[in-house]
């Protein structure tokens, strides 16, 4: 696990205060994995990193080790002395050192860990933090607790400045999303390369959009009057609810129907008739009822399926029994959808009787 050490610099400062002259020397010595430190903290860090270094000595890894100073403030002064280090790289190395200090057992040199730490409403990315590091050291250390971290380690042999790290994070994210999209789009799994995958994705989305157009055309053709015969919605709805992949038949066997649906559907057969009236647009009172009806939503529509069902023989016996049982009971148990408005129901019952 990558851990950040968020110790304030004050821990290190007293030790390193008078050591500025020796810093360049110590840096060189660290490069040689030599115990030439001037503070206990430095020794600690160095030991842990030194053990790594012994295991896998390489010029790239020593990039982490080049800075002996543990305080950002110290580093900044030494940065000015040494022209070949960029400011950001220094900060990066410090961070990496701290990381190395916290988890000595890792072979962190070779692999990269990207962790997004979203603790308690934090804000900026680490790259942004790094850019601010040139400011006050204490300010920098006060800020991290409040900001969002993307914990990144530079890979072996790769540049360690914040720009390229941020780019790498961004690229990893994109490739992750590409993988998901590859899974989604059928026939994309054998294609490598961003351009090809994007091509497939574009074709897929386009084809889906065209299908929607075609299907909406089909729906208008099927129902020239736009008065949607509603008894089929029951089936569709049941189908979705049962999460089956099979297209339901109209004369679905009774046992398959979910009992709770049947109950609540039976209760308001008459409310549905208002919906049907609305579709036909017959009387003057219809518009008024139309306004209130939409609030009751498709459960009325679904209910009407049962009222219109009369003819399909396979439904008749079972559902009529239900009618007999449920019709006088008033409202049933939990509805899957929001409940019908109370004022409509008694009115419609009157109408029916």
């Amino acid at each position, binding site marked *: 696990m990558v851990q950040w050490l968020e110790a304030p610099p004050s821990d290190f400062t007293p030790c390193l205060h008078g050591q500025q002259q020796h810093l360049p020397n110590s840096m060189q010595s660290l490069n040689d994995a030599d115990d030439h430190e001037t503070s206990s903290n430095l020794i600690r860090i160095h030991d842990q990193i030194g053990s790594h270094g012994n295991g896998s000595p390489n010029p790239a890894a020593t990039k982490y080790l080049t800075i002996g100073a543990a305080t950002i403030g110290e580093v900044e002064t030494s940065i000015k002395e040494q022209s070949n280090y960029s400011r950001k790289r220094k900060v990066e190395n410090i961070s990496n050192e701290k990381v190395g200090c916290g988890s000595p057992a890792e072979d962190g040199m070779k692999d990269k860990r990207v962790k997004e730490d979203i603790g308690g409403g934090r804000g900026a990315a680490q790259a942004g933090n790094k850019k601010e590091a040139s400011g006050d050291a204490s300010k920098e250390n006060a800020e991290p607790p409040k900001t969002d971290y993307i914990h990144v380690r530079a890979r072996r042999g790769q540049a360690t400045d914040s720009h390229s790290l941020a780019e790498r994070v961004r690229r990893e994210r*994109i490739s992750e999303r590409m993988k998901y999209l590859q899974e989604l789009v059928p026939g994309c799994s054998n294609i490598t390369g961003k351009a090809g995958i994007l091509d497939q994705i*574009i074709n897929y989305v386009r084809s889906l*959009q065209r299908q929607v157009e075609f*299907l909406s055309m089909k*729906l208008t053709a099927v129902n020239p009057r*736009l008065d949607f015969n509603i008894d089929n919605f029951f089936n*569709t709805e049941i189908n979705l609810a049962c999460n089956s992949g099979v297209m339901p038949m109209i004369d679905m066997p009774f046992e398959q129907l979910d009992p709770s649906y049947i109950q609540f559907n039976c209760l308001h057969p008459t409310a549905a008739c208002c919906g049907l009236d609305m579709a036909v647009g017959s009387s003057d009172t219809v518009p008024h009822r139309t306004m209130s009806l*939409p609030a009751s939503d498709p459960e009325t*529509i679904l209910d009407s399926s049962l009222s219109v069902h009369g003819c399909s023989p396979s439904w008749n016996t079972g559902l009529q029994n239900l009618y007999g049982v449920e019709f006088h009971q008033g409202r049933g148990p939990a509805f899957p959808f929001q409940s019908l408005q109370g004022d409509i129901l008694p009115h419609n019952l009157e109408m029916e009787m």
Partner: protein
Amino acid sequence: MQASNTFKKAFLKRMLLGLQLAGFSSKSMTVQERKSAIKLSADVAMACARGSANWSRAIIADLSKQEKNKVLLRSILRKDYERLTRPCHHTWKIPRSKKILKRSFRVCSRRRKGLRAPQGLATSVLARVLVKKRTRVLKRLVPGGESLDGSYLLDETLDYAISLRVQVDLMQRLSKAFEASKVGSHNVCTFQAREDSYADK
């Protein structure tokens, strides 16, 4: 990748509502108008069921640009209309100074040229150009994708593609159901008879 059941249910619910309202609002429509009404209700249902996503807001915003759709939209969505048309701050494009952008672009490209190992410049440049072209096309395809970039664009595409799939599936089932019901003509007769009887009352 599967869409959740709640999404499907909400979608169906809104779609049925939308179809009813669209059907009621005008009895004599041309085929084109009917088709666009159906498509509108399908899209709105999808956007509403999805809730707050960049593409769903974009769909609703695009549709409400036309005045004639606004009323229909409002009646379909009701309280969700306000929620979905509220400007969403985190998707606003951050206004960036062009000068700074140009400078940073120069720095980045210079750095990139220096750091990357030369790997056949022509092919890499070509690949990059292709990818750029296709992301541009994708941005146009996905509603609201113009203001997105990189991984966010891909996120939205993923989401949008899943919802489109559900939409297609649902509409296929609806059309099959209608066709099947049409075949059963006695159903229609019953419906007519009932309708007459209620019209008399």
